[in-house]
């Protein structure tokens, strides 16, 4: 086998591997009568089944990863009894959840109490449909995909409020109000950052945004991902922080703050409804991670040109997994904030910085034709435009704040 | 996206609005930066000063706009804006009226512990008022349903806030909420009507709408749209039967806000609707000349107008609250101005504009007097005005002039406005037209109106204050800025009555 044929073989392998899902899909359709509506239905159902199984399994694996990871962070083994290395733990948990008694408080608003967990999962799933996981794994390709994502995603706030309110528990209500305040506050930077990416990509379609990042420079080593621009790194950090808050993850998990308000809106839930909340939350996390990948990490694209032989449907889960790990890492590292700190952080830092980011994107896109030394100016300018406001606002916010002085410990 | 968008033209078209924006930013910014260090009085003074300077610069910008000759109009920015004498006049008018009401703020500081409207946040108030003024100005130049709606809502939303600006007052909050709920509903009606018009014609530019409707002719759907638009308009203009908010707002809102709602808002609203109805829906106006002509919006306007005049005048007779009385009289005046809307067909917008402008000036005068009185004693009931002649002859004189102008007594501006407007309405087809009968009704009702205006004057000029209430007899010291507002409105009321050509010259 000479290198040339090897390359050919290699390329054809890569192509075949890439188009595997299409071939499976065509094969299944071939088994069916050639009625267009049936083909459409089956195609759609296939897409849905893939989404449900993929993200369902991913959810399961992430829970076990998280538990084990947190265990390691805290110098303990984590779950290790069920299955090999405790890998079957989530399934055991599911069975346990099914078996547990479902307790509904006598004074609760029964209907809303029932709807709330379903709605959490429902809206989580809706957002997942739009995430482009690969050229052949884009279940829903809308012209205004970004809008769809936020329309579906924002509705999950409603579910949390439903849960808190219907429980008829003071802690639940407080938590849901807090959650609402927190979610709407962090929704803004999220939205604004998406807008800046849309500005750069010139389209609202998520596959379109991915397509805009599917090339490489410097001989195919450096991908042209948005994260590798001065505005992109800032934007991603903001988006990630906002995503943490949107999914009630540590350090923004105030709504569930066990030490203050029992478990917030989850207080009155038990059994499988509780599990559904978990599922919904993780679906939300997966969706936001998917969005972050789409917006900043080139979606399904390989990081280097020569790595293209690995099919896109591998790359996407890998990136997703790494994002989730990042979530877990943050959770293990940081402490929970106070509500005032949280709100201040959103309104006084993230929102202004995302507005600044819009301007920087405009600058960056308009200076695309600068070359040579001007290129340097472009980078420096963009960084300066991001950094200076950040420093100014940061200094202003921390004015008068020093390390806390402990009276009794001195 | 249309690459041929001419932004220079946009900037040219909106120079006064840009000036207002910069002014409001300046007012807010200055207050944020230095406000805390200043005394209340200085803070208020600076805010008002910035507001006045801003309005002056807006007037300056307006004056430096080329006005096409009468009967012609310039279209800017792909037909989104229109500029003609009416737009020019209304812009100048609203800036002037707005400046007059601004002057009231500085004067409305309470002297005693009495609960009177006061402004803890003058810069915000000025900024919101400038926003409202911007809305008025946009309404004046809009040639397109969208710009019109935006201007309308910008103005309305600002006015809601201004009506409720006195946070210490229960009445103010209640008034603004009522104003808001009614106004919101009106906006919804109007928007629905706009959407139907858009659906029928496929365009939102007024002349294109007119062209398209001329081809289509009237249809039931169009009638629905017209009624909806007019319902929205009726609310805005406080015309019966959509007037319920007006008395409450006039009574509860702080005096400067009420003055603005009664003056500039009316001027801009009526100018805008005259333009909408004639330039956009003129081809489906129906017949104001003969009874039994084709149906159209004119009949609806006539009915609303008649209802407003009857209800306004008759309800005003029963009032014991001076502000409510002025409100009901405003409803009656709205009826007359609706007649002016019809008369636009005969004589152009001149009579309507003159009437609305002079009405606004006189109303500001009245509210200035109320505001000045409120510095020492509450000024709600008509009896609160008692002994005004002794407490401040100047206030009594201004009240005298302004109320008589509202009543339509020569040689004041209100008289000339009425006369000109009635002549224009009769010009359509004399008494034999619906408009003619409406004019007849208007005359009869002005005679009724005279009675309640005289009640106010009687209280102010003749009746002695009841003994015992020390606040109600002490002399009123009127602050300088209010004096300016009072003197200006009274002087304008007289001067425009004697030399109406100053205003009408624009339209000839």
């Amino acid at each position, binding site marked *: 086998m000479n290198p040339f044929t090897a390359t050919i073989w290699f390329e054809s392998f890569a192509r075949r591997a890439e188009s595997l899902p299409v071939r499976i899909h065509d094969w299944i359709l071939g088994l069916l009568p050639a009625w267009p509506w049936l083909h459409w239905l089956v195609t759609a159902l296939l897409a849905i089944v893939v989404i449900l199984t993929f993200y369902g399994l991913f959810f399961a694996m992430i829970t076990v990863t998280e538990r084990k990871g947190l265990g390691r962070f805290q110098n303990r083994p984590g779950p290790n009894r069920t299955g090999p290395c405790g890998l079957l733990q989530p399934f055991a948990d599911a069975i346990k959840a099914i078996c547990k008694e479902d307790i509904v408080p006598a004074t609760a608003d029964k209907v809303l109490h029932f709807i709330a967990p379903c709605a959490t999962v429902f809206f989580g799933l809706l957002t997942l449909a739009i995430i482009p996981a690969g050229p052949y794994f884009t279940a829903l390709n809308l012209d205004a995909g970004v809008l769809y994502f936020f329309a579906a995603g924002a509705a999950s706030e409603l579910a949390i409020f439903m849960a808190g309110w219907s429980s008829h528990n003071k802690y639940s209500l407080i938590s849901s109000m807090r959650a609402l305040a927190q979610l709407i506050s962090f929704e803004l930077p999220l939205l604004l950052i998406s807008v800046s990416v849309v500005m750069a990509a010139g389209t609202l379609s998520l596959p379109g945004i991915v397509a805009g990042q599917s090339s490489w420079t410097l001989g195919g080593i450096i991908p042209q991902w948005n994260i590798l621009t001065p505005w992109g790194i800032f934007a991603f950090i903001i988006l990630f922080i906002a995503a943490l808050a949107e999914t009630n993850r540590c350090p923004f998990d105030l709504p569930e703050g066990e030490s203050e308000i029992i478990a917030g809106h989850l207080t009155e839930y038990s059994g499988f409804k509780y599990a559904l909340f978990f599922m919904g939350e993780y679906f939300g996390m997966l969706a936001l991670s998917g969005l972050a990948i789409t917006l900043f990490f080139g979606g399904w694209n390989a990081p280097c040109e020569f790595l293209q032989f690995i099919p896109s449907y591998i790359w996407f889960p890998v990136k997703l997994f790494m994002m989730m790990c990042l979530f877990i890492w943050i959770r293990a590292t940081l402490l929970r904030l106070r509500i005032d700190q949280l709100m201040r952080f959103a309104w006084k830092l993230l929102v202004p910085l995302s507005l600044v980011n819009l301007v920087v994107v405009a600058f960056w896109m308009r200076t695309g034709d600068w070359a040579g030394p001007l290129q340097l100016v472009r980078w420096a300018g963009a960084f300066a435009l991001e950094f200076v406001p950040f420093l100014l606002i940061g200094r202003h916010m921390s004015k008068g704040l020093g390390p806390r002085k402990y009276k009794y410990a001195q | 996206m249309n690459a041929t968008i001419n932004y220079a033209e946009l900037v040219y078209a909106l120079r006064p609005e840009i000036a207002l924006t910069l002014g409001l930013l300046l007012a807010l910014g200055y207050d944020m930066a230095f406000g805390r260090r200043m005394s209340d009085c200085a803070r208020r003074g600076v805010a008002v000063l910035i507001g006045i300077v801003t309005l002056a610069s807006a007037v300056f910008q307006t004056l430096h706009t080329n006005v096409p000759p009468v009967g012609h109009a310039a279209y800017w920015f*792909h*037909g989104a804006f229109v500029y003609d004498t009416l737009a020019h006049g209304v812009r100048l008018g609203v800036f002037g009226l707005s400046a007059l009401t601004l002057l009231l703020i500085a004067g409305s500081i309470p002297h005693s512990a009495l609960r009177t409207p006061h402004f803890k946040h003058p810069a915000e108030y000025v900024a919101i008022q400038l926003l409202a003024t911007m809305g008025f100005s946009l309404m004046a130049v809009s040639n397109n*349903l*969208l710009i019109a*709606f*935006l201007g309308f*809502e910008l103005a309305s*939303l600002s006015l*809601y*806030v201004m009506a*409720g600006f006195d*946070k210490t007052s*229960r*009445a103010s*909050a*209640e*008034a*603004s*909420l*009522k104003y*808001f*709920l009614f106004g*919101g*509903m009106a*906006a*919804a*009606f109007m*928007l*629905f009507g*706009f*959407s*139907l018009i*858009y*659906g029928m*014609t*496929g*365009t*939102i*530019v007024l002349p*294109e709408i007119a062209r*398209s409707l001329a081809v289509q002719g009237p249809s039931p759907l169009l009638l629905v749209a017209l009624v909806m638009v007019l319902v929205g308009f009726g609310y805005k203009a406080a015309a019966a039967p959509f007037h319920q908010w007006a*008395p*409450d707002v006039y*009574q*509860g809102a702080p005096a400067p806000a009420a003055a603005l709602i009664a003056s500039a808002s009316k001027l801009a609203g009526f100018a805008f609707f005259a333009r909408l109805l004639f330039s956009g829906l003129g081809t489906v106006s129906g017949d104001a000349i003969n009874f039994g002509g084709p149906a159209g919006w004119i009949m609806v306007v006539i009915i609303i107008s008649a209802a407003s005049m009857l209800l306004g005048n008759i309800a005003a007779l029963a*009032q*014991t*609250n001076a502000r*409510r009385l002025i409100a009901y009289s405003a409803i009656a005046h709205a009826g007359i101005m609706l007649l002016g809307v019809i008369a636009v067909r005969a004589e152009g917008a001149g009579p309507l504009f003159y009437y609305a402008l002079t009405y606004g000036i006189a109303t500001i005068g009245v509210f200035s007097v109320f505001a000045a009185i409120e510095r020492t004693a509450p000024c709600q009931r008509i009896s609160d005005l008692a002994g005004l002649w002794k407490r401040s002859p100047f206030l009594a004189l201004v009240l005298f002039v302004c109320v008589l102008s509202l009543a339509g007594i020569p040689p004041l501006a209100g008289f000339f406005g009425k006369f000109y407007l009635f002549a224009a309405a009769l010009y359509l087809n004399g008494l034999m037209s619906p408009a003619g009968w409406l004019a007849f009704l208007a005359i009869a009702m002005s005679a009724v109106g005279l009675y309640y205006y005289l009640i106010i004057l009687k209280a102010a000029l003749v009746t002695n204050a009841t003994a015992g209430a020390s606040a109600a007899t002490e002399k009123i010291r009127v602050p300088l800025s209010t004096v300016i507002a009072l003197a200006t409105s009274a002087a304008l009321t007289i001067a425009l009555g004697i030399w109406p050509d100053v205003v009408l010259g624009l339209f000839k």
Partner: protein
Amino acid sequence: MSALHLCLIFSTLLFALGLAAALSRSNAILVLLGVELMLNAANINFIAFWRFSPQFASNPHAGVIFAVFSIAVAAAEAAVGLALIIAVYRHYKNVRLQDADQLKG
């Protein structure tokens, strides 16, 4: 019955519903909701007409632009409305409209 008709019927029903809510409810927030429904009914009209009707060449996007702007206006109205309701609440300790009856005559 065409899609346009369906949209129009839907929007009309929505408008009627909003109007009914705005007129019959005594809670200010519910009235506000009714008003918002009415505004959104108009938005649906705009979009429906834009989508299903022949357009004037001069501005093919008028309907959708109008809808975008009126959504913004509706939001601004909600913002102002909520603020005013809070202001009333501060005085009356509730938002029932029948209690706000200080001004009359």
